[in-house]
């Protein structure tokens, strides 16, 4: 900063924006997006098309979107929280009735030339709505049981609709995010312990009585992919082969045989991490993992620095969404979780996830810019 602005008064306007803006976070995101472009170039066997260039363009648009979202006042975000949730719910219902099937699941809604995936938009809308809800709640109400009913609806309604599509990955991700926000808002520990206990008892019962045979088969395959290497377990096994054969230092950029020779399905989307593991080894994987951890840590720091509950919870929710993405994806490709179809944010090829994540980061940046602002608890602005 120029010495002119040093002193008693803080810089204002554009300069204030530049000063307060969280450049560390943006730099980390740019690095991840760049890695994505590099990997997609390699997946195409050293070709910018079809994926690398389009990923670069989408990522750039995402950065633009993030900047715009960051410039929008946090109070406006808070104001549109409920309407946004309601709007996305309408879209989800639209998918239920008018959606088109892609890869065997109804996820897309076509409105004119635009294809939107409402389940992705819900990730933002749910975070905003929950943050908005708890913003207006005292800590006593937030910790109690009764206060849990509206969030249960806010979370449960979209999760059920998305499960019906069926998109298990997104549903789990949404539920996780919601639970994290409820927890951060100060839910009573007894309720948390009771809920965890109920889940522990309910899961085996659900497995036995609540699942169809084919669903149980899928879980069995996940637990033992080698039992059916050419069928259900193929993806997991090939993914583990790619990762494992990379070793510590990897086979070298563009030298990954598993991916280059098409043994790896979905290698440019959900399974791109395995390609990274094959070509750059453990070092490459840990490097990317550390980048994701730094981004998450940065988000949590932003959240704790905020002076209002809406920002705190919204940023925490965004962090939870982001970590859930990373966790589910990497757990999936390393064989720790069933294959549920969750992309690796910023690196996987795909438009919607960039929009969701970048919009989320934009909101986080906006919260960061407005971190000193205290907001009235009972009323919304505008």
């Amino acid at each position: 900063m120029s010495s002119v602005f040093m002193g008693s008064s803080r810089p204002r306007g554009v300069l204030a924006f530049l000063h307060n803006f969280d450049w560390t976070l943006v730099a980390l995101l740019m690095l991840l997006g760049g890695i994505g472009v590099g990997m997609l170039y390699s997946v195409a066997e050293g070709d910018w098309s079809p994926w690398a260039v389009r990923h670069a363009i989408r990522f750039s648009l995402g950065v633009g979107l993030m900047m715009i979202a960051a410039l929008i006042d946090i109070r406006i975000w808070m104001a549109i929280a409920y309407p946004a949730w309601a709007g996305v719910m309408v879209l989800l219902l639209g998918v239920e009735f008018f959606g088109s099937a892609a890869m065997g699941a109804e996820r897309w809604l076509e409105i004119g030339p635009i294809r939107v995936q409402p389940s992705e938009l819900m990730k933002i809308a749910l975070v905003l709505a929950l943050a908005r809800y708890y913003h207006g709640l005292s800590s006593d109400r937030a910790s109690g049981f009764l206060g849990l009913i509206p969030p249960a609806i806010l979370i449960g309604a979209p999760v059920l609709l998305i499960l019906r599509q069926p998109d298990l990955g997104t549903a789990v991700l949404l539920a996780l995010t919601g639970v994290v926000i409820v927890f951060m808002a100060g839910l009573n520990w007894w309720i948390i312990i009771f809920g965890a206990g109920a889940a522990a008892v309910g899961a085996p019962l659900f497995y036995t009585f609540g699942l169809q045979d084919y669903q149980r088969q899928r879980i069995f395959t996940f637990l033992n992919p080698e039992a059916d290497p050419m069928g259900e377990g193929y993806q997991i096994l090939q993914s583990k082969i790619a990762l494992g054969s990379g070793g510590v230092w990897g086979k070298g950029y563009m030298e990954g045989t598993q991916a280059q020779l098409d043994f790896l399905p979905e290698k440019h989307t959900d399974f791109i991490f395995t390609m990274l593991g094959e070509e750059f080894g453990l070092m490459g994987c840990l490097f990317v993992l550390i980048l994701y951890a730094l981004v998450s840590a940065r988000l949590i720091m932003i959240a704790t620095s905020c002076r209002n509950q809406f920002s705190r919870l919204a940023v925490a929710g965004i962090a939870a969404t982001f970590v859930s993405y990373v966790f589910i994806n990497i757990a999936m490709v390393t064989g720790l979780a069933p294959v549920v179809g969750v992309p690796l944010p910023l690196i996987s090829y795909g438009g919607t996830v960039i929009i969701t994540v970048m919009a989320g980061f934009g909101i986080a940046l906006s919260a960061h810019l407005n971190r000193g602002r205290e907001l009235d608890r009972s009323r919304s602005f505008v």
Partner: protein
Amino acid sequence: MKRNDRETTFSRRSFILAGGGGLIFTGLGARLVSLQISQTERYRTLSEDNQFNFRLLTPSRGRILDRNGEVLADNQDAYNVLMVPDQTGGVEEAIDRLSAHIEISDGQRQRILREVQRNPSFRPVTIAENLDWETFARLNVHAPDLPGILPVVGEVRYYPHGPILAHTTGYVGKASEEVAGNDPLLRHPGFRIGRDGLELSLDERLRGEAGALKVEVDAYGRVVRELPDPKTQPAPGDDIRLTLDLKLQQYAAQRMEDEAASAVAMDVRNGDILALASVPSYDPNSFAKGMSQKEYDALRADERQPLFKKAVGGLYPPASTFKLLVALAAQRHGVMDPGERVFCSGRIRLGNHPFHCWKRGGHGALDMAGAIQHSCDIYYYEAARRLGIEKIAETAREFGLGEKFDISVPGVQSGTVPDEAWKLARFGERWQGGETLIAGIGQGYLSTSPLQLAVMTARLATGRAVTPRVVTDGSPGAFAHLNYNDESFALVREAMMSVCEQPGGTAYYALGGGFEYGDMLMAGKSGTGQVRRISLSERATGVLKGDQVPWKYRDHALFVCFAPYEDPRYAVAVVVEHGVGGSSNAGPRARDILRACFEREAGRDPTAVAAADTPERDT
């Protein structure tokens, strides 16, 4: 303040949140360490298994050549389609896709599915073989849309002369399940092993060594690139040169084509077999390419036995040709003076049993040479009686009878030279005196193959233990002298010459006046091998003539001969199954084949003139 409460709670819980996040990232990191360090060896191997495939390169089978380098068994390019089941992503679908380009019958489909089930899924299975070039080219163009389908250029064994040499070369075929075991080469769908003939007995030399090609493949089994480095070229099998002369072989087969017969022609100086013909024959190409059960059954059902190697495996009584050996034995042991005359009245008695001469009225008094020239049975009954079976058998063995000659062709039979011990072992009975008499005229238990008859003739012609060979391997060793004095050989050879070349010889008229080839003289002996016993009642009413009985009860016609009489070079033996007359039927054929040997020596093609020359037949 409430707000501060919330802020405090949030701050406290954000530590838990950060801790949870840290735990998640640590957990993922640990998982990666486990995969990429602890288990990396395992996954690296799996990755290479994915990536590389060893393609077996089948070796080119060695060719079989005649003595002049004419190709008798060759390899031709064959356009085949294979399928690698685990690269198809569904065998049935792959067949469906393929059937848009080539016709696949239900039967074929069933066979393919059966083979797919029997073999591990990475092993290629044959879909179709010997496609025409156009179809093959079309498949290659469509190959990218046909995962798991491999159009390959293989080799198919080809026998340019078809049936002419089938009994010698044999044929190739797929290795049977038991033979193949787990040998990847034998299990390779494009590979054939010898199933009969020289192809079988010399299989190891013809086979060669398999090579391997390491190829990088993608997930669909398509070859991305060949890795030249670890490629080992297959080593082709050895070419094998035979002593056979294709033209002579063709001529011999042609000269006998109207009969079920066999002929062996030999160079008596080195034992080279020049012709080893057996008719009728079969086309080995149909075996190499795969034959239908119906065709095979038809071949098996034919009473003239086209699949049977008569020249080496057919066993016939040597009949009167055996008298030559009895004459030699009689001289060696001094039981008969060559000048001693034996009176033939047409029959003699031994004990209660009468023994007949073929000539009902008898020959009158004959000496040893005359008894050969006229083929008198009575004389040789007497000679045999005086010799006894042991001495007869000894001489027979010295001339190659009863010996299983190793000429590399499978199916060579040793035949039988009976003696007392043999009979005791075989039937548990004592030898009878009458059986010695029967043996003296080459009947009874005696049995010989045409190959043995040719060897016998070669040994008579040279006085040496000539050993036959079909495969040219180095030079033949010098043959040992046979322990009979020169006068004995001279007498027998001269008598054989008179059989063919002098009026009164049993073959003179049948041959139309002897060898008639330049000023060369030939020597020979006919034989008529009895197939059925002539009963006493039939003798009384008159023995039935050859064509009065059904074909399969007629006598075998034999003729052995060599030429030139003074300095023998070639020997020929011919057996016409159920051909009735030794001199009348087998004689002219043997004479013509003998002539053809000299034609070949002069570099001429005997098959060119043979077409017009129809065999003479009489009764």
